[in-house]
């Protein structure tokens, strides 16, 4: 049955030839793979093809500011973002991305349409969150989130979009800003410092449920 072995080997060789499938590649070390392809083939597995991730463990990227996305991918690649989620999930996967690929990935997700994010938070919590978002907490020296993130929480360049982001993710990041050096070089470190846990829960709930 020698011919069967030949067929098997020939089949594997045939499958292996033309192995660079750049249009649908998941190769993170091939600079010729466009950022859009990596966004679809790799990033989308967690963040969603349209950037509206389902798991609260994973941030939504749909409609995110390209400047912010580029900064974060650069920080992951340079291992400067040391919060656990960043190092566990993002350091390795971004380690050999080129600047052009990072720009392509940022462009892809920034153009996706954000979807509403179902919330079961109670109206009292949402109202408290709205107050913090729009007016800050003057007695705690917390400025309004909208001052930098925009009146519709849409973000501005390096300031990220927050509308419809998972509340769990926002609380987690606020904790990183407040308690660690995991995300250096951001004004959030100082801004988040006076926030209480209750403040964070409220504003995060409001941002997840953000009204259109």
């Amino acid at each position: 049955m020698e011919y069967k072995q030949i067929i098997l080997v020939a089949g594997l060789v045939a499958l292996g030839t033309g192995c660079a499938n750049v249009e649908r590649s998941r190769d993170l070390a091939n600079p010729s793979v466009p950022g859009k392809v990596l966004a679809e083939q790799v990033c989308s597995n967690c963040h969603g093809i349209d950037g509206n991730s389902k798991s609260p463990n994973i941030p939504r990227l749909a409609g995110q500011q390209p400047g912010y996305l580029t900064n974060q991918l650069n920080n992951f690649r340079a291992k400067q973002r040391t919060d656990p989620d960043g190092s566990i999930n993002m350091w390795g996967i971004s380690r050999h991305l080129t600047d052009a690929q990072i720009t392509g990935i940022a462009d892809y997700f920034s153009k996706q349409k954000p979807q509403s994010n179902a919330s079961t938070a109670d109206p009292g919590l949402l109202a408290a969150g709205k107050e913090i978002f729009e007016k800050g907490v003057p007695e705690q020296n917390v400025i309004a989130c909208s001052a930098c993130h925009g009146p519709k929480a849409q973000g501005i360049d390096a300031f990220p979009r927050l509308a419809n982001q998972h509340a769990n993710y926002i609380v987690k990041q606020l904790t990183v800003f407040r308690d660690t050096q995991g995300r250096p070089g951001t004004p959030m470190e100082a801004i988040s410092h006076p926030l209480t846990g209750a403040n964070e829960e409220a504003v995060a709930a409001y941002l997840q449920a953000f009204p259109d």
Partner: protein
Amino acid sequence: MVVLAKHVEHIAVRATGIISGLATVLVMLAPSQAFALPAFARQTGQNCVACHAGGQFPELTPYGRMFKMTGYTIGERSVPLSVMGVLSYAKVNDTSKSDDPAADFQKNGAPMFATGSVFLAGKVTDNIGVFIQNTYDNYASQSAEGRFKGHSSADNMDIRYADHFIGNDRDLVLGLSVNNNPSVPDPWSSAAAWMQYVPGASPTSHQFADGPYPGYGAGSNLAGVNVYGYWNKTIYAEVGTYRTANQAFSFMSAGIPNGGTTHLDGNNNPYWRFAYSREWGPHNLMIGTSGMNAHVYDDPTDTSDPNSLSHIKNVGIDAQYQYLLDPHTVTAQIAYMKQKQNYSVNSVAVAASPYFLADGVTPVATPNDSDTTNTLRAKLSYIYQAKYGGSLAFFNVTGTTNTRNQSSGYDNSPGSGLITTNDPNATGITSTRVGGNLSGSPATRGWTYEAFWIPVQYVRVGAQYTTYSKFNGAADNYDGFGRNAKDNNTLRLYVWAAY
């Protein structure tokens, strides 16, 4: 070295001590980086928990399932080798009802290096990836003097080609898997090949550690070609067919003697698997069904006679629920497998149970030509911070009672029947202690409780305790020698490590 050996021997007096000690050594030897360890982690640069739910193996997260379904091709080519080892200790509740406890409960209460595996695993091209496991069993066989001998053989193998098509309204993964074990290509851990996460060991003291799992009657070390598709992360469909792992596919049963492999009839032993999955918030759910239709030769070394083919049909349903939200991981799995085996014409023709009723005069009933078994396994696990976990599992096997399956019974000694292992009256009829089956029923039921600790992502230390309320068809005296199901209750401690 002698001093060191004596020191280690001294420590070994208490198994819990040595196992925790070894765990500590492993932790100390380990590099401090929190990522980039076994082959797939090196390939993606991610931590194990990105793909494995709560860091437990082999259960996959939604991303881990996509990594597998897209043919292990995410990331970049790296050194595609990993190793895994298991240190194990088992203690059976009662070893007294045995003629030869040293043989019936080998290595009982003795810590040992149980198994080790080498993996060739990783991305080959943009579309091709492999997962090839070869396992060394340190207790594979025994010499005439009773010394154990280790042996390596093919374990799970999965060679894939996959593509992922993405459009405005389309998300479709299509793939092909060449593999050696039905359900190995499956991405969910309620599938037969993946529900059991810690490999056991050969010595008979380990035979009762953990209970039976749903599986396919045709067994593993076959050769199969399966095609699969996953549409919009919702519908999964896989069909395949299996044959004997010989000729061009002999590498899939490498290390296993011809007489030890399953020999199937031809190339047409179909396997199928369909599943519905859904993800919402931190939750994800899969409900699925699978089955196989196989024709298996009674004697693997003689495939010349079609009358020596038995026909095994498996149909299963399974479901898995995961809740993944830091720092919590909750998993619930349930799997049920029904198996019907029609025995071969030859086997039916010669089948006559050797045993008698207690009077030693009346033969037991004529054996049935077929058997049906139903195996249920349910498991609930919780892990905190991907470090501290516990699980609770229930297993229940029911099935037809058949005198064909008796391995213990009364002989026809003068006066009245005897159940013996040594046949004092030369009747030619003997029975099996400990593993014996007096009833002809497969009914087995019990629970496995487990607590484990994952000090670093590639080391796991665990304690399992398995209890039986029924074994081989009975709660009491299941082997005819007075052994009760609860005598098989087993404590097992293990240290698992991979690199």
